[in-house]
């Protein structure tokens, strides 16, 4: 009976689905055309080169913060662990938002399809070498995250009713006003809010819906699935659930998801570790491929530059360092010292990119789903698709699924559940970030908030119906546009963070702040 159900459902939907096949194509064409100019601007290369200016912007930003704060990601790592463990948490703050909780909530917004599907896109376009640049971007991004999250707490709004709101909108406005740059700060805050709304609709929504749909198609028969080419069906169902949560206020769905997501993350990482243990003799070879590919390209069309671009692009999309989004979640923590949350937040790119993304990349490389010429050791480039030839010609979440499935045959089913939950959790987090930006621009009120929430739900359908290419381009462009504005503000405000850091370190050194555990 159970086996008959999908077949019966497919038969019922088939005529309807066939007639509606064109809906996905129409959405893809209209939205792709509309977002094209924005995407082209963000990814415009330097004249005479193929190197996008936005990648250099991210690299320079992360390097500046790393040097300015004296490699805080290395010096502060141990202290960050101590803060998360609660070693410095005062008993009178019991029941308030702990450092761990702020970190976990921020992570639930970042760990997700960027780690699963995004990494697959990076290595299939940039080759294994993209992983090297991704790890480097993750390590350097820790300093960007430190800067923005310290500011997020320092300049948050604490309202009389006890609620807290923070994020780039507030530190750009208040922090820069303190420096006598109120007008620039206001302009940057408004620009950030506009791009944050686009980011919420793109990376925080369309990309999630798109890849969740891709994996559902993958496990229900691939090209023969009744869902294939009918992303709008998945989109409407997902949009309906998102609507129930963000408009209907059914918190239980969000709460259940938030609690399942850490479990799914553990299962995902656990399965990755098992595959790596099963192929332990190839781990050294895989790292060899990563290092060699980082500097030679190993046959990938873009070579070193292609690997670097993909590595930085996917790392920034995955860990959101310098983007400013995580500062919104981190700013709710209970602490008297804003810099403590800066320390804690630097763990986020480490967990997200250095640990989880690297593990995904290793599994993809080791399981041999990337086409490689055995005689030359170079990867086989599919010029038509603009990426390395893969088993079944797949990319994104389907490639990661194929890699895991080649070692653990039933894992694609578990991955489908994980992907849907990750997608849903990220959507809930980003609907919140987007709403904060929306209310910053248009003010609070039921009608204005409802307008954003309805738009958000419509974009779930658009994301699921479109093909991966235009979705990921728009998602990246929107997220990186946030980073352009946010990092500009961070350059102005980083002396304030440095003062906070010096003040806090002096208190630690003098014993004014001590461990309570």
């Amino acid at each position, binding site marked *: 009976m159970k086996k008959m159900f999908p077949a019966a459902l497919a038969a019922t939907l088939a005529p309807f689905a066939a007639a509606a096949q064109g809906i996905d194509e129409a959405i893809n064409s209209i939205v792709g055309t509309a977002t094209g100019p924005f995407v082209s601007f963000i990814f415009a290369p330097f004249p005479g080169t193929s190197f996008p200016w936005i990648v250099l912007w991210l690299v320079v930003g992360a390097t500046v913060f790393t040097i300015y704060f004296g490699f805080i990601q290395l010096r502060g790592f141990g202290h960050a662990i101590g803060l998360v463990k*609660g070693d410095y*948490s005062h008993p009178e703050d*019991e*029941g*308030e*938002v*702990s450092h*761990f*909780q*702020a970190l*976990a*909530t921020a992570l*639930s*917004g970042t760990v997700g399809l960027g780690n699963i599907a995004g990494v697959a896109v990076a290595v299939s376009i940039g080759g294994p070498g993209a992983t090297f640049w991704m790890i480097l971007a993750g390590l350097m991004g820790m300093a960007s995250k430190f800067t923005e999250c310290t500011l997020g707490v320092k300049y948050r709004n*604490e309202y009389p*009713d*006890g*609620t*807290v*709101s923070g994020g780039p909108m507030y530190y750009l406005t208040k922090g820069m006003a303190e420096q006598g740059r109120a007008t620039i700060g206001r302009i940057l805050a408004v620009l950030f809010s506009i791009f944050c709304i686009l980011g919420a609709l793109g990376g925080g929504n369309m990309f999630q819906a798109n890849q969740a749909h891709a994996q559902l198609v993958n496990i229900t028969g691939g090209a023969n699935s009744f869902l294939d080419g009918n992303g709008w069906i998945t989109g409407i169902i997902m949009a309906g659930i998102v609507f129930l949560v963000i408009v209907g206020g059914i*918190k239980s769905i*969000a*709460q259940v998801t*938030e*609690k399942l*997501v*850490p479990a799914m993350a553990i299962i995902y990482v656990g399965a990755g570790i098992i595959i790596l243990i099963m192929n332990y003799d190839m781990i050294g070879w895989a790292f060899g491929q990563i290092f060699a590919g980082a500097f030679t390209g190993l046959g990938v069309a873009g070579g070193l530059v292609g690997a670097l671009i993909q590595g930085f692009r996917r790392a920034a999309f995955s860990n959101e360092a310098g983007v400013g989004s995580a500062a*919104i*979640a981190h700013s*709710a923590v*209970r602490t008297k010292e804003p810099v403590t949350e800066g320390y804690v937040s630097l763990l986020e790119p480490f967990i997200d990119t250095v640990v989880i993304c690297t593990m995904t990349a290793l599994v993809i490389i080791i399981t041999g789903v990337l086409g490689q010429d055995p005689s030359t050791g170079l990867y086989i480039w599919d010029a038509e698709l603009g990426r390395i030839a893969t088993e079944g010609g797949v990319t994104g979440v389907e490639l990661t699924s194929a890699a895991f499935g080649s070692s653990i045959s039933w894992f694609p089913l578990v991955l489908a559940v994980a992907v849907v939950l990750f997608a849903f959790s990220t959507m*809930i*987090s980003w609907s*919140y*970030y987007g709403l904060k930006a929306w209310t910053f621009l248009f003010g609070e009120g039921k009608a204005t908030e409802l307008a954003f929430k309805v738009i958000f739900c419509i974009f779930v359908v658009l994301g699921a119906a479109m093909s991966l290419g235009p979705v990921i381009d728009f998602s990246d462009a929107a997220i990186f546009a946030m980073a352009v504005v946010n990092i500009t503000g961070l350059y102005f405000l980083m002396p304030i963070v440095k003062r906070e850091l010096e003040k806090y370190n002096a208190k630690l050194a003098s014993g004014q702040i001590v461990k309570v555990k």
Partner: protein
Amino acid sequence: MPDELYVVAYDGEHRRAVDHAVDQARRSGARLHIVHVIEWSPYRFLTPQELEERHKRRSEEVARAEAEVIQPILSELGNAGIEATGEIRYGNVVELLAAIAQKQHASGIIMGRSRGTSFGGRIFGSAAMGLAQVSPVPVTIVP
């Protein structure tokens, strides 16, 4: 001020531990310290919306516990001529009661036994069983 002090766990509903403590206090002239614990873990996952509202919710929870649990029982004990203090804490009931008893140099802890099914308690252990194992002072579990 009497030297003897008992820490009494009170959830605001079940009076058995408090009633037993009152008998004890009457017999020995001991002071009572009423503790109301709101179960909380700093490792619990929260949604962004819950983060935003957490401080507000905590203030409301503390105010409600103060008005509906601690003040009524302290007032009742005061009227009965028993010297008593109270506090509201967030966290794990076992860890907190043990820590408070140690800090206050209490003679003992008095708490009620959970009346729930014993199935969950057998698997995960009840608060009373946990406290009996870690408490630095004698524990009285009131059935």
